[in-house]
């Protein structure tokens, strides 16, 4: 049973990824995270469940295969923001690596990062993904899903005994 769940979960994740490449290269959805959730979190599990049911697999086996697919998909979706937006920490590591054995100075690093680039694009991402809306006064207001995310994150850090993250 688990051999089938492993095999089909991995195969469907691979198939969803193969669909993801041309879809993104050609269409590149505006709300990319939502697009990923639909492709990896809804379409692929539905196809997997329907296919396994058609082939006569038990409901338990189907559930295990879908669970694995969802976990693999979640792992990919959570990695995606680091790809979508240039993460400053990774960019710093790259710049420092490019410095070779001589390394680079703080001033070199600072010169590389343009201040408005680090903020304005992230604001735009929040608007595009529907986590923030801009009011008629021009001010930003966070939406209900964003409030829920913030609540869970604050709760997690409280459980861990940590102050708010430094960003």
């Amino acid at each position, binding site marked *: 049973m688990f051999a089938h769940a492993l095999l089909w979960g991995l195969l469907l994740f691979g198939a969803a990824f193969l669909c993801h490449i041309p879809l993104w290269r050609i269409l590149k959805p505006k709300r990319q995270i939502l697009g990923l959730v639909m492709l990896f979190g809804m379409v692929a599990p539905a196809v997997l469940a329907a296919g396994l049911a058609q082939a006569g697999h038990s409901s338990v086996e189907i559930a295990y295969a879908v669970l*694995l697919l969802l976990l693999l998909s979640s792992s990919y979706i959570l990695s995606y923001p680091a790809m979508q937006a240039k993460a400053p*920490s990774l960019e710093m590591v790259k710049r420092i690596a490019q410095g070779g054995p001589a390394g680079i100075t703080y001033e070199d690093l600072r010169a590389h*990062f343009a201040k408005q680039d680090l903020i304005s694009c*992230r604001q735009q991402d*929040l608007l595009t993904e529907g986590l923030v809306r801009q009011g008629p006064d021009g001010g930003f207001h966070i939406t209900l899903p964003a409030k829920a995310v913030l609540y869970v994150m604050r709760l997690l*850090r409280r459980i861990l005994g940590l102050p708010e993250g430094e960003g």
Partner: protein
Amino acid sequence: MEAWQLLAGFPPALLGVHATFSRFFRPRLSNQMITLAAIGASLALALAGELASQRRSGALDGARAAYVLLSAGCAGYCYFHFFNMTETSRRIKLLRMMSGIGREEAAKTVYDLDDILKVRLARLTAMKQIRLEKGRYLLAGRTLYVGYAVLERLKRILALEETNLRS
């Protein structure tokens, strides 16, 4: 014990181990190192539980052990990314600022380029990915650099370069 019972117990166990490690190891280790250690320990616990369960039932099933380990590994990977978002994400920092939580402190950190860079340099140093020698930053570990290279490759496959230029 069924595989789903082991997997259902994994997230609360991971949270408990992380909360314990966080209180025990801070501030000697960075939050990222503590989180990785907690995930590693929880995975070892899950594997031990799986093997003990199989031994009790008297039937060894390698596919089931692989399934449990892969699924728990994905859950641990998701948890690491989620925790990292509470710690390092500019988007989350912006959301916090917009929602008025720690508004002044958040606004200062988010909008000040030197703070953005210094917080990350300190974090990368604590993670032993870079080191400071005679006023120059040098690469000290390869983990994040490899991660960066993998993400860059994926960006090229998905044709995300254009998106990145705006960051």
